[in-house]
C-alpha cells in the first residue's frame, strides 16, 4: 500500500512538472477508424520501427567506422571480420535501410491513392515528401561509406547528375563533392551528412509530421467519407498498439532472417584512378531514375538530353510536393486522373527497374 502510494506520489510529482498526463489522456482517447483500407495505417509505424533499428545499428557501427580515405574500407572490413558479430550488425543496417525506404514508398503511395492528403492535411504530405527525400539522401550517402569500387562509382555518377541543371547545378555538385572531383573530402562530407546533418533534419521534420498526424487524426478514404455514416472505430491504446506489435514482430523477424542469411559483401578499397567497374548499379530505389537517365537521347533539339531528363525529374519532384494543392477536387474527374497517375507511376517505376536489372 505504501509503495503504491509512493508511486502515485512520484507520478503526480512528475506530472505537475511535465504535464505528461495530457499526452497520455490524448493517446487514451485517440481512435483509429476501421475500414477496407485500414491496413495502410500500419505502414507509418513500420517505418518508425526500421528507423529505430537504423539508429541503434548506426550508433554501433560508428563506434568502429573510420571516415577517412585510408581507413574507411579497412574499418568496414574490420567490422565484418574482427569485431564479434560485426557482419550481422552491418547487414542489419544495410537491409533495414532498404526495408525502411520500401515502406516509405508504400506509405506515400497508399496516401496518394487513398487521397489522405486532402484538406487539412496538405502540410502533413509536404513534410512527408521532405522525409522521403531525406531517407533517399541517407541511402545515397550511406552507400559511399564502405568506400569500395561500386560505392565510389555510384557516388561519382550520382553527384554528377545535378551538374546538368543550368546555372546552379555546378555548385550543387561542388557542394556535394567538396571540390570538382570525388575525393577523400567527399567521403568525410558524406559521413557528416549521414551521421549528423541528415539525422537532425529527419528528427525535426519527423516530429512535425507526427504532431500533424496526431492533431488532425487519421484520414478516412473518400469513398467512406462520402457515405457519411459513422465508421467503426478502435481505441489507439491498447487495441491498435497490440495489433501494431504483431506487425512489428513479423517485420523484425523477416529483417533479422534476411540480414543473417544474405549479408552484403565488401569489394576491395576504391581506387580513385581506376576505371569504373562493370555492372555498376545504384541501390534498387534509384534504379528507375538511373535507367531513365540511361535511355534519354544525348541531344534533343540542340539541348543536352541530360539537362532535359534532370529538369523533368526536378519538375516531377516539385509536382509531387504540391500534389495536395494540384488535387484540389478529389471526388471529381480530376481526382480520379490523379489516382490513376499513382498506378501509372508504380507501373513505370517497376518496369524501368526491371529493365535496368535485366539489361
Amino acid at each position, binding site marked *: 500500500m505504501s509503495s503504491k502510494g509512493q508511486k502515485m506520489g512520484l507520478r503526480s510529482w512528475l506530472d505537475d512538472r511535465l504535464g505528461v498526463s495530457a499526452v497520455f489522456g490524448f493517446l487514451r482517447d485517440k481512435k483509429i477508424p476501421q475500414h477496407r483500407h485500414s491496413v495502410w495505417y500500419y505502414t507509418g509505424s513500420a517505418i518508425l520501427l526500421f528507423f529505430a533499428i537504423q539508429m541503434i545499428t548506426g550508433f*554501433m557501427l560508428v563506434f568502429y567506422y573510420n571516415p577517412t580515405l585510408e581507413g574507411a574500407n579497412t574499418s568496414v572490413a574490420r567490422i565484418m571480420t574482427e569485431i*564479434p558479430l560485426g557482419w550481422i550488425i552491418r547487414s542489419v543496417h544495410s537491409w533495414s535501410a532498404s526495408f525502411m525506404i520500401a515502406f516509405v514508398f508504400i506509405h506515400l503511395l497508399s496516401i496518394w491513392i487513398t487521397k489522405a492528403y486532402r484538406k487539412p492535411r496538405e502540410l502533413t504530405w509536404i513534410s512527408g515528401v521532405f522525409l522521403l527525400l531525406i531517407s533517399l539522401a541517407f541511402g545515397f550517402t550511406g552507400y559511399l561509406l564502405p568506400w569500395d569500387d561500386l560505392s565510389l562509382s555510384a557516388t561519382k555518377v550520382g553527384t554528377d547528375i545535378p551538374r546538368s541543371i543550368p546555372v546552379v547545378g555546378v555548385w550543387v555538385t561542388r557542394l556535394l563533392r567538396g571540390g570538382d572531383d570525388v575525393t577523400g573530402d567527399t567521403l568525410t562530407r558524406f559521413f557528416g551528412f549521414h551521421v549528423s546533418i541528415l539525422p537532425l533534419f529527419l528528427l525535426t521534420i519527423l516530429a512535425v509530421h507526427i504532431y500533424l498526424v496526431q492533431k488532425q487524426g487519421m484520414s478516412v478514404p473518400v469513398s467512406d467519407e462520402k457515405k457519411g455514416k459513422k465508421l467503426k472505430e478502435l481505441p489507439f491504446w491498447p487495441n491498435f498498439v497490440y495489433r501494431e506489435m504483431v506487425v512489428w514482430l513479423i517485420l523484425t523477424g523477416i529483417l533479422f532472417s534476411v540480414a543473417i542469411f544474405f549479408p552484403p559483401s565488401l569489394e576491395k578499397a576504391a581506387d580513385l584512378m581506376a576505371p569504373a567497374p562493370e555492372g555498376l548499379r545504384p541501390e534498387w530505389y534509384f534504379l528507375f531514375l538511373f535507367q531513365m537517365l540511361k535511355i534519354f537521347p544525348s541531344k534533343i533539339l540542340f539541348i543536352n538530353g541530360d539537362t532535359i531528363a534532370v529538369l523533368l525529374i526536378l519538375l516531377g519532384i516539385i509536382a509531387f510536393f504540391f500534389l495536395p494543392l494540384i488535387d484540389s477536387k478529389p471526388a471529381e474527374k480530376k481526382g480520379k486522373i490523379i489516382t490513376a497517375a499513382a498506378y501509372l507511376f508504380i507501373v513505370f517505376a517497376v518496369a524501368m527497374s526491371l529493365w535496368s536489372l535485366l539489361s
Partner: protein
Amino acid sequence: MKLKHSLFTRRQFLNGILGGWFGALAASVLYPALKFVFPPTREPDQVILPFSDCEDMKLNTVKNFPWGSKPGLLKKNDDGSYTAFVAVCTHLDCNVTYLSDQRKFFCACHDGWYDESGTHIGGPPPRPLRRLILSIEGEDLIIKREGVE
C-alpha cells in the same frame, strides 16, 4: 472471471506471459549487440624481443617495448640483471617514466612516485607497478605475464 483457487486473474497471467517472452526475446537480441559493443581486448601472454637489442644497455637505464596496447619498460639493474614492468601507473592509468638520476619511476599526472624496484613510495598510487616475468632463451628475451606457463 477469477477462479476460486487461482492466484492470478486471466489478465495478469496473460500480461505476465507476454512480458516474459518479450523480455526473453529482447535479451537474446541484446546479447549479440553487447558482444559487438564490448569486443574482447586481451593483453598478450608474452612478448618476444631479440636479446641482442638489450644486451648493450647501460646499467640503470630503461628501454621501451610495446606490451599489447600498453607501454612496457625493460630496466637493466646495477648488477646487470633485467626487470620488466608494465609502465602504467596503478593510480589512474597514466604512463610512467623512469628518472635515472633519481632512480625512481615517476607519473606526471598526479605526482606519483615508485622506487627502482617499482614499489610505490609517494603520491596517490595504491599499488606497486606491475612486474612481468623475464627469461632468456637462446637469442630471444621472452617477457611473460604473471601466471602464464
